């Protein structure tokens, strides 16, 4: 019973903590009587270890970084919207559509940013550099967007359809942003080059995700065909739904790519986690 209790108490701690301290902590627990006070102390210690690791909550500094990350992505969405407005000119689109595009962009960037940050905060001590790289990459991406737009004289709105050049354009934009972020990632990860590809794929995936979401909306609303639906003013909740769909896809692709890049080495994965207790 007491061995089971000791092992259970150790399992309360985060895996990384157990890998480092589990064996010696098990030896310590085995050497002393488990009073209710000691059990409570260990339980509190486990909670503290989770807090320290940031898996249950975040400290003030991490909240600060988290907030900056979200604000940055929101600002990027606004900047992209303004640039796209300039690129496409003052067309006849109603205000609700312009606002709707901003909502879509913001949702994509915020959801994607949350996913990326949730992975990165565990691995990058200098996460502030990631923010700088994001800004630099976004600036380069926006410049590329303007250059490409002027050369090709693109006249369609960004969410008008799944045209090949739109896919290439968004893949290029996100690829350039990813390149800016790669400048930071490569300091800590030798496979960071894959991040550029993942960013480009995620960028290209925004349009299909958006079209699928529009199709779902059309089915739900039993309204006009997809292309016709694109041409009319949208309700903000529909646009938000499409933004969330694009954001989830962007978050999935980039978040999974980061999780893959920062996965523990095979040796660490194979190492057993100390959680059992035997007599001292």
């Amino acid at each position, binding site marked *: 019973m007491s061995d089971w209790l000791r092992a259970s108490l150790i399992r309360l701690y985060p895996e990384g903590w157990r890998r480092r*301290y589990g*064996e*010696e902590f098990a030896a*310590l627990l085995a050497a002393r009587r488990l009073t209710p006070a*000691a059990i*409570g*102390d*260990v339980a509190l*210690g486990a909670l503290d270890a989770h807090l320290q690791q940031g898996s249950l909550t975040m400290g003030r500094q991490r909240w600060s970084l988290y907030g900056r990350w979200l604000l940055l992505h929101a600002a990027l969405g606004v900047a992209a919207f303004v640039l796209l407005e300039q690129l496409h000119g003052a067309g006849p689109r109603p205000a609700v559509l312009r606002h709707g595009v901003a909502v879509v962009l913001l949702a994509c960037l915020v959801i994607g940013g949350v996913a990326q940050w949730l992975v990165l905060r565990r691995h990058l001590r200098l996460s502030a550099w990631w923010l700088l790289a994001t800004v630099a990459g976004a600036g380069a991406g926006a410049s590329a967007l303007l250059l490409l737009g002027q050369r090709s004289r693109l006249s369609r709105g960004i969410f008008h359809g799944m045209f090949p050049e739109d896919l290439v354009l968004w893949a290029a934009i996100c690829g350039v942003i990813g390149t800016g972020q790669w400048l930071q990632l490569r300091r800590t990860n030798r496979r960071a080059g894959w991040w550029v590809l993942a960013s480009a794929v995620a960028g290209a995936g925004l349009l299909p995700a958006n079209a699928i979401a529009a199709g779902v909306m059309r089915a739900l609303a039993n309204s006009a065909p997809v292309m016709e639906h694109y041409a009319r003013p949208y309700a903000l909740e529909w646009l938000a739904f499409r933004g969330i769909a694009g954001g989830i896809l962007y978050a999935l692709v980039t978040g999974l790519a980061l999780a893959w890049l920062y996965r523990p080495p095979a040796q660490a994965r194979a190492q057993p986690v100390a959680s059992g207790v035997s007599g001292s």
Partner: protein
Amino acid sequence: MTQGRGGLADLGRFSEPALLILVSLAGGAKHGYAMMEDIEGLYGVRLGPGTLYGALTRLEDRGLIEALPAADRRRPYRLTARGADLLRARLAQLDRFATAGLRRLEAR
């Protein structure tokens, strides 16, 4: 108080256990259970296992103590030079504080 970032003041509820651990390790390298016994004999306080390791992990993170190779599942820790400097400064500060307090009591 002194120290600031990287010292003991920012350890919150672990600052006192951390000081006790540093004092214990000043007498030589010890593993967790030996530290608990030593601190109880020295100070009359029995640290709980969770509290002990909460303070240990923080001290190790700050480079104030370091782990030695484990023997029979028990891993001893020892003070680093930085930990010794910080402990010396902290004890000197407490000594000045205690002396001033006792002097005031005597003057009553």
